[in-house]
């Protein structure tokens, strides 16, 4: 059974197609990463799953049932647009948000204290939203998503706005929920985050799915090696080398993505004479690299197709 399944889902606004014929099958269990550049249609997709906007066509299933109000109660949602009632106290607000998910006030009350404790918000329970820091509001928003103990969690950019301590706490909590058998769907363009916690990913670009599968398969199937280089001297020629698909400069080192049939050691002689090389290492392609390469390749072919 799938946690969430989209079949041929399309949504257009005023002639602009936000999501086009999207097929997505998110299995039960595990952490699923929904990736894509800004404006790719991630948020629109999630909003359609939550019935905040209606798709123009297509079918959405939640836990094997057609998506309806009751099915949606099994989902916890942390939207991209964070927001809490400004004049309500934290505890009242979280109880209310659980109640409108169908949880009785008494159950919500029993679950609230442990969660506040866990997220370090226990002393802030009686404070109003506008007295909380941004990070605290973010944690409160997370509690709002989990308090009704949903089977599936949809988190839009869960790490944004958190300091390193908060990010660690969030990551540990997410993994803990995943180990309890919950299905986590994380939408993000922070590739490092996704790479660390997700076991499956889908990449959306301009409303269409361009990649989908287990992270390990995607990395293996990306083809082409990635080389990490560190050097002194002028490296502007690197992008012109045969077989180099893209170059990403990280300041202290540079990452080259190679075309599938290019062997890293074949490049070494072409580089070694021109700069003072201090590192030459074949590395696994990062999700970041895959993301950039895939989006760039797709945009290039779209351009070519138009010409």
């Amino acid at each position: 059974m799938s946690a969430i399944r989209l079949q041929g889902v399309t949504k257009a606004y005023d002639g602009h197609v936000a999501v086009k014929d999207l097929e997505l099958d998110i299995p039960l269990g595990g952490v699923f990463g929904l990736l894509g550049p800004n404006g790719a249609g991630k948020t629109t997709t999630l909003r359609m799953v939550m019935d905040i906007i209606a798709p123009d066509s297509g079918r959405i299933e939640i836990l094997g049932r057609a998506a309806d109000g009751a099915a949606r109660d099994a989902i916890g949602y942390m939207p991209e647009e964070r927001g809490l009632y400004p004049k309500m106290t934290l505890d009242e607000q979280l109880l209310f948000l659980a109640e409108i998910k169908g949880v009785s006030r008494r159950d919500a009350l029993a679950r609230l204290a442990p969660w506040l404790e866990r997220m370090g918000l226990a002393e802030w329970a009686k404070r109003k939203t506008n007295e909380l820091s941004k990070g605290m509001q973010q944690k409160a928003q997370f509690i709002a998503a989990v308090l009704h103990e949903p089977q599936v969690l949809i988190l839009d950019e869960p790490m944004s706005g958190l300091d390193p301590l908060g990010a660690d706490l969030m990551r540990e909590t997410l993994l803990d929920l995943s180990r309890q058998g919950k299905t986590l769907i994380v939408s993000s363009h922070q590739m490092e985050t996704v790479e660390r916690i997700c076991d499956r990913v889908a990449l959306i670009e301009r409303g269409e799915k361009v990649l989908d599968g287990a992270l390990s398969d995607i990395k293996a199937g990306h083809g082409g090696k990635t080389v990490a280089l560190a050097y002194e001297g002028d490296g502007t020629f690197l992008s012109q080398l045969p077989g180099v698909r893209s170059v990403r400069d990280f300041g202290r080192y540079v990452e080259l993505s190679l075309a599938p049939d290019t062997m890293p050691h074949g490049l070494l002689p072409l580089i070694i004479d021109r700069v003072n090389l201090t590192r030459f290492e074949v590395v696994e392609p990062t999700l970041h690299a895959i993301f950039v390469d895939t989006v760039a390749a797709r945009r290039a072919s779209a351009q070519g197709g138009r010409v």
Partner: protein
Amino acid sequence: MRRIWTVARREYLERVRSKAFIIGTVLAPVIMAAFMVVPMLMMQHQHGKALRISVVDATGHLRGAVEKALEGQKDGERSRFEIVPAPGGPLDSVLDRLRDRVVAEDLDGVVVLPADALEASRAEYQARNVAGFVDVLAIRSAVEGVVVKQRLASAGFDADRVSNLTRGLDLATIRLTASGAREDHGATVILAVILMMLIYTSVLMWGTVVMNGVIEEKTSRVVELVASSVSPARLLAGKLLGIGGAGLTQFLVWMACLLAIGAYGSAAMGMAGVSLPEVGFEVGASFVVFFLLGFFLYALLFAAIGSAVNSTQEAQPLTILVMTPLIASMIFMMAVIQRPDSGLSVTLSLIPFFTPLIMFLRIVTLTPPLWQVLLSVILTLATILALTWVTGRIYRVGILMYGKKPTFPELLRWTRQS
């Protein structure tokens, strides 16, 4: 259904616990009471001291009668005036000395009867304070009585007989209703105006609260989270019920205060010979019914505005548009009170956006045919239903729209989107 109540409870508690609500609910009746009760109390208890006045008579034969007439003027149980006998001597110098005493606050005033007082029918009252119109009227009526009596006597008439024969007519106005006849001293009009103002204020105020609530949910971005749990239609329904409940709470408190003040006022004014109309059951019931109809009708419009705009400032011009029928109702108020059964009044009272104020006004001033009342209620309910559909659509699209303010054609398009 349970979630509608959860939303309604949140909305209700948030309003009722706010400082603005507590102040408005408690303070408004206090101010109402201050305006109505304090003047009554002052009138009752300000029987102050009697005014010390002297009479200077140039005719030479009216003084005794005038002094006697002045002494006969009562203020409650007491005499209104205390006569200070004027000293003898030449009139001019006597008057000068009396004026000095008035200025020195030894005396309150001087009534001066000129030599031609009878023929020209005139007199003067010289005092530091000539603004106490009750006192001035009392002096006038006392002196006038003496002067008229003198003239009648010198023309050979019996003054008492004449005044008995020419006494004024007492026209009583009796209001006939299905439940019986009642004497009415014009207070119905005052009551109608006060109650109508109360509906007007409450509908406008709570409509605005709904609008600001929608805008706040939008600007705080919490609406996306809420809309992912409750459908927009239920969210809107819960919001209207909760805020409407808070409005009704305040409205009932005000009404109870008004009745209490009215009861106290009747008791106080009963002594003054004025009776306040009792608020009958049909008036009380229609007060609540038409407030609720008005609230839901206008709150739906305000909610639609709130979901279409990004800030209260942006809402302003649209708000004024929505308020127009309410303001127009206030303008037509006097015309409707004068002729509650005219074609204009009947027509207006049947137009849903005017019904809450105009039909209510007609019910207070006269009892309209039952079919008209029922028809107006049905038409208003139908409009509320239709508006629920339209607003629900605009709300669903609007709560997630940020940025540009939509144009009217865009709003229409939203209603067609599913």
